[in-house]
Each structure stands twice: as C-alpha cells, then as structure tokens.
C-alpha cells in the first residue's frame, strides 16, 4: 500500500485541473438557443406516462396541447369549444351523436386521421386493462361498465356505444342524455391516436407522435423535451415560431432566476415570493389572467356532526367569517380574485358564470358570521381543524390567514387551527378514507370550460371528486335535467339553479378564483395564457 501518490502531488494536480475547468467554463452565456425562432419554456416533470387518456395534470397536458388536435378545441381566449377535426357532430336526442371527421388531416408520421383513430383511442382510454387515469371521461359512453367495471375483470374490450360507420364517420351512444357532450371533446383524453401507438407502444412513449402543430424531436424524461414546428401541419393554427424547448425545473424560483438572466424565454409559474417585484423586474412582460381554477373549503359530510340540520348556518357563518378581499390582496398579491360563485369567470356569463350568485354568504361580515355559527349550534366539537397538504402550492400561508380571519370573526383565538398533512399522496389518502374531521382544502381545476364540470363531479351524489360526500336529491335532479336539456341556455339556467342549492346548503365554501401567471423574455411577443393557465405556444412569435 505504499504506492499512493504523495499528498503534495495530488493537491497540485487537483488545483491545476480546477484552474483548467475555470478557464474553459463560465463563458456559456445565452443557453436559451435551440436555433433561431425556437423558444425555451419552463416545464414540470409529467407525473404519468405521456398518453392522452393518462394525463391529468397541467405539465403533461401542456405537451398534449402542442402535439395533438382533437375533434374540438377550446378557444385560447374565450374557452368556447370550437370544431377542429370535427366537420359535424349531430344529434337528435342529446344521446346518440353522429360524428364526421374532417378530410385532409394526418398524423405527423403521414398516417391519415380517420374515424378509427378516434374510436381506437377512446376504447384504449376506457379499457381497465390500460390503467388510464382519465378513463372516467369515457364513462358517459354506453358499455363503459363492461370495459371498466368498478371491480372484477372487464367483460368487453371495446365500448358498445362506439361504432365506426365509415372512413370518416362514427357514432357515439351515451348511457344518458348529455347535451354538453360535444363540448367535452376538446379535452386531451379524446385525442386521436395513430397506429404506431398500439403497435409499438414503448417507442411511442419515448417520442409521442400526434397530429398537432408541433412534433417531438427529442425527449429526455425528467429533463427536457424539444418540439419543432411540423411544416406539413394541415390545421388553421400553424405555429408562428420554429419550435419550443421545454425544460424541467424542480423549483419555480430557479426558472424565474433563469428568466431574469436571459437563460429562459418563458416561465409560466411565477413563484409566490417573487410576486412583489415581478412587475418591475419584467417591465410589462408579465401576464396575470383568470384561469378555470377555483379554491374551496370542503366539509366532511360523512361525519354526522357536520351533516346535522342547522349546520348549514354554521357553514354559511364560516364562509362569512373569511375576509377574502384582504387575503387575496396581501397574500396572493392580486393573483386570486375573491370568489362570488362556484364556477369561474373564464366561463363567461353565457357559459354559466354568475358573479355574486353566492350573495351575502360570501361577503365578509364578522358580526353575522358569529351570530350564524351560534344559531347553528356552534362549531362541532367547539373547534375547527382546517386540513391541507403542506408539500406543494404554498398553501400554508393562506390556510393560516383563513384561520386567523375565522378566529377574529368568532372572537375566539382557538376556534380554528391549521392542520398540515405532509404529502399530497397522504392527503388524498386521508380524504378517500374519510379520515378528515374538519373542513379541508379542495382545489378544482376545470377539465373543460363547462359549468357542468364545476358542479357535477364535485357535488353530485357519489361523484368522482365529491370528496366531502355531500348529497342532495334536489341538486342531483336539477343536474340531470340540465344535462338532458337540448337548449344550451336552458341547460345553463338549470345548472345555476343547482348551484343555488349548493349555496343554500353551503356544500363547500368558495374562496377565490385563481389566475395563471407567466413572465417572458424580450425576444417573445404574442404570449397569452389560455383558460387552463397554459401558454398558447403556437401563437408566440420569437424575434
């Protein structure tokens, strides 16, 4: 063991190599160059494999929106569902729909987009065997319970409600009337899939092939995806830039720092800590627009203490005890708007958003709040535990503020305490096992801009996201009627009546509408966020 180099020489070598490293380094200034006309944008690592029906979060959805076009597409500005690949979607009874796919569309590998591209993709998405997390989107289609039973093995491979009737035509039969169905078809889960997806699935996952304005040219999972404009794209929304490089950031603060130093072109998640100086930092290159996201407080209706008659007074009282204006202003710096109904402003008045539907119940009034809580028999157990997950989304600040506001209104320092849960997975766990004893955070990001999406999944009896297990026959009846109504305006009216039931019972306390925020570099112009708070990449121009 005597052969080791003497320490002196080792040290000298190390110094020399370090100096060499320093000399060669440091010069790599603008790394934001993927070539002329290509912009770089911040990204988060998608949680699930990138398949249309398996993507239920924003980061994966961002890519699908660039790589795919479906039958419908939501207008980036208004959120209205407009025909994209659909030539016609016809129905007589809101239950059976005849779909005609436009001619001339192909996938970026040259394969034609046909009726089968859709039917195969939907069957794949619905099938229990494929573990698709958005399978429930196909739940309205006839035969879903055979393809995706709640327990046990599936008894069919394909949805009986889907039938290909020609190269470009197919029919969809639903298990109930649903007049809003065509409007849901802009959701990524309904995207068409090329044959390559089924024949060589692993290769497809490595490099997804779609029919949208961009093609994936390289994908290093968990790190970066390069997308380039597909020149032969047949659609009307051709990309106005040459491509996008999506870079994964673990911390939105680093993305922001990169943006400040010119190392990144677009960051679509401005960290809360930077909101104070973002306007001066970016000199007008900051966007802050409403998105289809509503934060609410849900109640554990499975716990008898919260479901007694009279408790609606307590719940309404708690709603009135929250000073939404002040919290939006001081904690969120105007990136939240105090909620006055249970939908979102992005729906627009015609879509069902009604400002002020909540009325007095959402107005800060500490005196009436205290009176109402007392009238309703006081807080169950004399105390409120407000549960939230502490790992993401900086929820702690606002939960503490809400508690503080409630304590002030009720004139009791110990009325409300925040109750953090370590991880989101554990939080979801406790919710699904009905272990949460008090009000809890329940954010909702819309899947598609329909008033139905803000109400039915959340408050319908046993609905998929009805975490508090609230149940009302009156509400359910109104929703059924609204879905069956063929006239859009009449349908929206009925949904709003259902929303009034939610208000009168205070099934959940609406807190605030959330905005999407983004900042961009001087190279870019035409940057906007769609109602899902995702940048509309194809419209961005690079100087």
């Amino acid at each position, binding site marked *: 063991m005597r052969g080791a180099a003497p320490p002196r020489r080792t040290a000298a070598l190390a110094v020399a190599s370090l100096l060499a490293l320093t000399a060669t380094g440091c010069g790599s200034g603008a790394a934001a160059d993927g070539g002329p006309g290509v912009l770089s944008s911040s990204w988060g690592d998608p949680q699930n494999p990138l398949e249309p029906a398996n993507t239920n979060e924003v980061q994966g959805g961002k890519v699908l929106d660039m790589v795919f076009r479906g039958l419908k597409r939501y207008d980036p500005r208004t959120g209205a569902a407009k025909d994209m690949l659909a030539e016609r979607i016809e129905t007589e009874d809101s239950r059976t729909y005849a779909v005609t796919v436009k001619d001339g569309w192909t996938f970026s590998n040259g394969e034609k987009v046909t009726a089968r591209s859709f039917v195969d993709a939907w069957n794949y998405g619905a099938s*229990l065997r494929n573990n698709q997390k958005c399978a429930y989107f196909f739940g309205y289609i006839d035969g879903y319970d055979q393809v995706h039973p709640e327990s046990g093995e599936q008894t069919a491979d394909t949805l009986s409600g889907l039938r290909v009737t020609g190269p470009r035509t197919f029919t969809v039969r639903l298990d109930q009337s649903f007049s809003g169905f065509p409007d849901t078809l802009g959701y990524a889960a309904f995207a068409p899939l090329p044959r390559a997806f089924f024949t060589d699935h692993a290769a497809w996952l490595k490099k997804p092939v779609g029919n949208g304005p961009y093609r994936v040219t390289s994908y290093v999972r968990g790190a970066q995806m390069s997308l380039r404009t597909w020149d032969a794209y047949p659609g009307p929304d051709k990309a106005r830039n040459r491509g996008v490089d999506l870079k994964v950031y673990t911390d939105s603060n680093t993305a922001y720092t990169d943006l400040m130093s010119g190392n990144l072109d677009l960051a679509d998640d401005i960290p809360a800590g930077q909101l104070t100086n973002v306007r001066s930092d970016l000199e007008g290159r900051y966007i802050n627009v409403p998105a289809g996201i509503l934060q609410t407080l849900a109640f554990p209706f499975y716990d008898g203490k919260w479901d007694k008659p009279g408790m609606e007074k307590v719940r309404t009282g708690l709603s009135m005890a929250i000073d939404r204006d002040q919290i939006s202003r001081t904690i969120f710096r105007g990136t939240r708007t105090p909620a006055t109904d249970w939908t979102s402003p992005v729906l627009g008045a015609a879509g069902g958003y009604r400002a002020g539907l909540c009325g007095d119940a959402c107005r800060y009034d500490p005196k009436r709040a205290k009176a109402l809580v007392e009238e309703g028999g006081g807080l169950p157990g004399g105390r409120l535990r407000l549960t939230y997950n502490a790992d993401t989304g900086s929820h702690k600040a606002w939960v503490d503020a809400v508690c503080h506001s409630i304590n002030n209104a009720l004139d009791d320092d110990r009325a409300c305490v925040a109750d953090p849960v370590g991880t989101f997975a554990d939080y*979801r766990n406790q919710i699904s096992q009905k272990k949460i004893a008090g009000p809890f955070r329940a954010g909702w990001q819309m899947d598609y801009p329909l008033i139905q999406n803000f109400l039915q999944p959340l408050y319908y009896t046993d609905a998929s996201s009805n975490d508090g297990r609230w149940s009302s026959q009156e509400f359910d009846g109104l929703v059924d009627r609204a879905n069956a109504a063929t006239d859009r305006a009449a349908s929206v009216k009925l949904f709003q009546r259902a929303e009034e039931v939610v208000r009168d019972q205070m099934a959940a306390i609406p807190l605030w509408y959330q905005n999407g925020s983004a900042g961009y570099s001087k190279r870019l112009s035409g940057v906007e966020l769609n109602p899902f708070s995702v940048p509309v990449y194809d419209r961005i121009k690079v100087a």
Partner: protein
Amino acid sequence: MGQYVMRRLLQMIPVFAGATLLIFLMVNVMGDPVAGLCGDKACDAATAARLKAEFGLDRPVWQQYLTYMGNVFTGDFGTAFNGQEVTALMAASFPVTARLTLVAIVFEVVLGVTLGVLTGLRRGRPVDTGVLMLSLVVISVPTFVTGLLLQLLFGVRWHWITPSVSLAASYDELIVPGLVLASVSLAYVTRLTRTSIAENLRADHVRTAVAKGLPRRRVIVRHLLRTSLIPVVTFIGSDIGALMGGAIVTERIFNIHGVGFQLYQGILRQNTQTVVGFVTVLVLVFLAANLLVDLLYAVLDPRIRYA
C-alpha cells in the same frame, strides 16, 4: 489486511438490510402512494386497484420488501410511477451527482487543507483569526442562502455563470454549485486540519524530522501533514455519502437533474420504488466510502496496523 477487508464486507450485509428495511417501512407508513396519482381527484377504484397490483402495493409490507430485495439482487429496481425503470433514472442522475460531489470534494481537499495548513502553522496570527472568522460565517449560514446569493450575484448580476445548470451538467457548470455544496464541509475541513496540524507540530516524529535538518517543506508535507490528515480523511470520507444524499438543496437551487432531484420527486410523489432504490444505492456509497477511509488509515500512518 485481506481478512480485515473481508470482515468489513460481511458487516455491510446487516447494515444494508437494516437500512433498506427502515426506509421501506418509512415510505410505506405514509399511506397509499396511488392516492396521489390522480391529481386533485380521487382515482377511480378499479384503476387504483390495478395500479396497486402492478406495483405490488396490494401485498403485505414484509412480502413487498422480500420481493423487492430479491429483485434488487438481480439488478431490477422496479418501475417509477411515470413508467420509467428506476435503473434508467439512476443511470441518468448518479453520474451528474457524482460529478457534483467530485467538484465539492476537490474544493474541500484543495481549499480546506491548504487553508488548514496555513492557519495551523500560523496560529494566533491575523491570517488564522481571519480564516477562523470566515469559516464560522460559512458554517452558520445555511446552504440555500449561500446558494441563492451566489446564483444572484454570479448569474443574474454579473453574468459569469448561467443560473441553472444545463442538461449535460459539465464540470465547468458545476463549479459554483460544487462550491456551494462544499461550503459547510469546507469550513469543517479547514478547522479540523488546523487543529490537527497544530497538535502534531509538537509530536515526536516531527521534532525528529526537524532535528535531522530536513527542509521545512519536506517536514510539513511528508511528516506533519501525513499524520495530521487522518481525522480529515475520516471526515471527507464520510462526507462523500452525505454530499451525494444531501445535494437536494443545491440541486434544487441550480436545477441540476441529479440524485437530489430524483429523491425529491420520489418523496413528493411518494414513489416507493424510486425512493427505496436511490436510498439503497446511497447506503452502498456510504458503506464503500467508510471502508475506503479505514483502508486509507494504513496508507497515511504506518503506525496503524490491522491484524
């Protein structure tokens, strides 16, 4: 010596098994990992059940552990929730963190030992006091503060570096993150070396060397430094593992896609396969580093002999 190494290797087995079992239990205590997979919604029961079966989460924990360890020995670390093999994640992230750790260790050895020798030989002088004060500051300031500060100054203000490290994570990009990662340990190495040097200055063999009339340089490097480095080597050796596992903060600040990034994602998504796999490898790194340190003793100090 051979026997000693053999004994040490055998000792690793229970340590390895215990450490992995503990981390396995800890991740599992946090509840059902599949619950967090469906965003703000509840997963539909049928899909959740199928996912659980696929990841083996429907079986009792002890059974999961045994299957897992069995697979690990065949090189199969399972699949992460995003459908990627954990081994692929490791192949992508361990080299990056290894490079970062190497840069940090080089800083510790070069800067730390040099400063330690300088101050140890000049105790009580202004240099000594100055370095001591500086190291105190470095130790007391948390890594994320140093990191963010350097990032702001070098990256945003002066444009010397890019604030985030690119996908390639080459050595030159890792200099500043490496310095940040090393900073606290660097201060400890300085202090350790200083004390050790000061102590050994009075040792018999050093006095003998001086009395023999050897040149001062030779006395310091060959006789004084060599024995003084033993505690320092111990520290640096155990630091290798700590640096690799503890790079989470530094890696987040500079957006380095290394072990810290994967561990963070794994914990956030409660991804048992990722977390346990990475920790397993880290445990191995720790054990190997410790063994290396013990073997180095013999090299550094001829007085230490192993049976």
